[in-house]
């Protein structure tokens, strides 16, 4: 006997759910290249505004470069996070995902990773170039890339909580920053701290370890909060 309230098919494995969502989001992102290229341009422009505002002295630039690159990366991430769930919410995909019967936190992890692959990874790959123009010593490039790679991934997870909370709010962009930026303080401190230490030739293993610890916490706890927030957003509607 079949009844109409039977839950949807749940016999696909979790890894397939994960990969399907991940590939779908990645495909969508690839088809609107402008979206993530804009983020990248924003990153470059913000960084290059600082020498114009502060002055081109190589010594000054080298001192403040780690902080500037890190803050700019943080702001660029905020910019792209705004649309993380918004499109799916508007066209009803999100609702389908919520009622699909699959664990929402797994879906969320896939979506966040897809966001990072298009909104975070390009920043990481581009950062040595910016470090070069900001007169940073070349010995610090490796640390910059590593710290940004770990840090931006944490930022994706932390920021996604905010993006999920404001999903049903119109024009939530500024609100998103207000909610998320205080929570990103630790990532910023340890990320730019690692880069600063390494350009001064100091050991960096502490900062990198803490960054990794924050990432571990974010990966394990944030999806639960994101999923809960998305459920609220979907149930409220707009």
């Amino acid at each position: 006997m079949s009844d109409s309230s039977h839950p949807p098919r749940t016999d696909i494995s979790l890894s397939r759910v994960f990969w399907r969502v991940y590939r779908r989001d990645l495909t969508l992102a690839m088809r609107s290249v402008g979206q993530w290229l804009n983020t990248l341009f924003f990153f470059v422009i913000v960084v290059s505004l600082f020498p114009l505002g502060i002055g081109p002295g190589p010594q000054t630039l080298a001192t403040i470069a780690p902080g500037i690159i890190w803050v700019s990366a943080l702001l660029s991430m905020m910019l792209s996070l705004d649309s993380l769930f918004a499109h799916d919410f508007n066209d009803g995909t999100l609702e389908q995902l919520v009622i699909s019967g699959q664990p929402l936190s797994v879906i969320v992890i896939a979506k966040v990773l897809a966001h990072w692959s298009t909104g975070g990874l390009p920043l990481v790959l581009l950062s040595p170039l910016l470090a070069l123009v900001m007169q940073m010593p070349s010995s610090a490039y490796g640390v910059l890339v590593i710290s940004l790679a770990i840090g931006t991934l944490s930022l994706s997870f932390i920021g996604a909580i905010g993006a999920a909370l404001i999903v049903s709010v119109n024009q939530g962009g500024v609100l998103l920053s207000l909610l998320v930026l205080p929570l990103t303080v630790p990532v910023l401190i340890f990320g730019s701290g690692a880069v600063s230490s390494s350009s001064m030739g100091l050991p960096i293993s502490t900062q990198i370890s803490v960054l990794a610890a924050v990432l571990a916490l974010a990966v394990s706890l944030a999806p639960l909060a994101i999923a809960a927030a998305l459920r609220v957003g979907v149930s409220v509607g707009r």
Partner: protein
Amino acid sequence: MYRVAGILSPLLAGACVLSLLIGLYLGLVVAPADYEQGDSYRIIFIHVPAAWMSMFVYMVMAISSAVFLIWRLKIADVVAVASAPIGAAFTAVALLTGSFWGKPMWGTWWIWDARLTSELVLLFLYLGYIALRGAMETQQGAARAAAILAVVGVVNIPIIHFSVEWWNTLHQPASITKFDKPSMHISMLRPLLIMVFAFQTLYFFNLMVRVRTLILEREARSSWVAALAGERTNG
């Protein structure tokens, strides 16, 4: 709850005024001047209780948010909403009095000290909570979303505090910024504790008043509120 709050609030107000008077008298008149800081240390009797309350109120807010998320108790949400602006006010007072104290002691209004910075971040968390609350259109959604935010915030507070402390020790030696308390003399400790009690009662008094208003607002259509309003206008 409405009735309980109504009974409690005058009691709390009384206790608050009384302990404020005693605390301020002991703190400003009876307690001796500090041998290093002179009279300007006396702002401690406002500053420290406000700073403690800023954290205490956030804990209340986070715990009642968690209670609301788990058991869907409406009153827990009311407590959380009512607490947010009070907590933000305590945080702002702590920051302001801190900078009034910092000017004569450290020679500057603001220092990027670990405690100052984490207090500032706490203020941002409060403001974010209030802003999210205001942005959501439906009551139910706003309540649950804000509750999630409060719980996320409370998980983050220790991490933020720890990292800010670490960052600070990296950048500057702690000697200039840390107000090193010698174990406090009883004549200073007593008024401080009384002031802490006064601030506690002040918070709970405000909370009760706000809770009563919020309950009335939310239950405006229920029969008991209508009956109450009728009683007031007729009698």
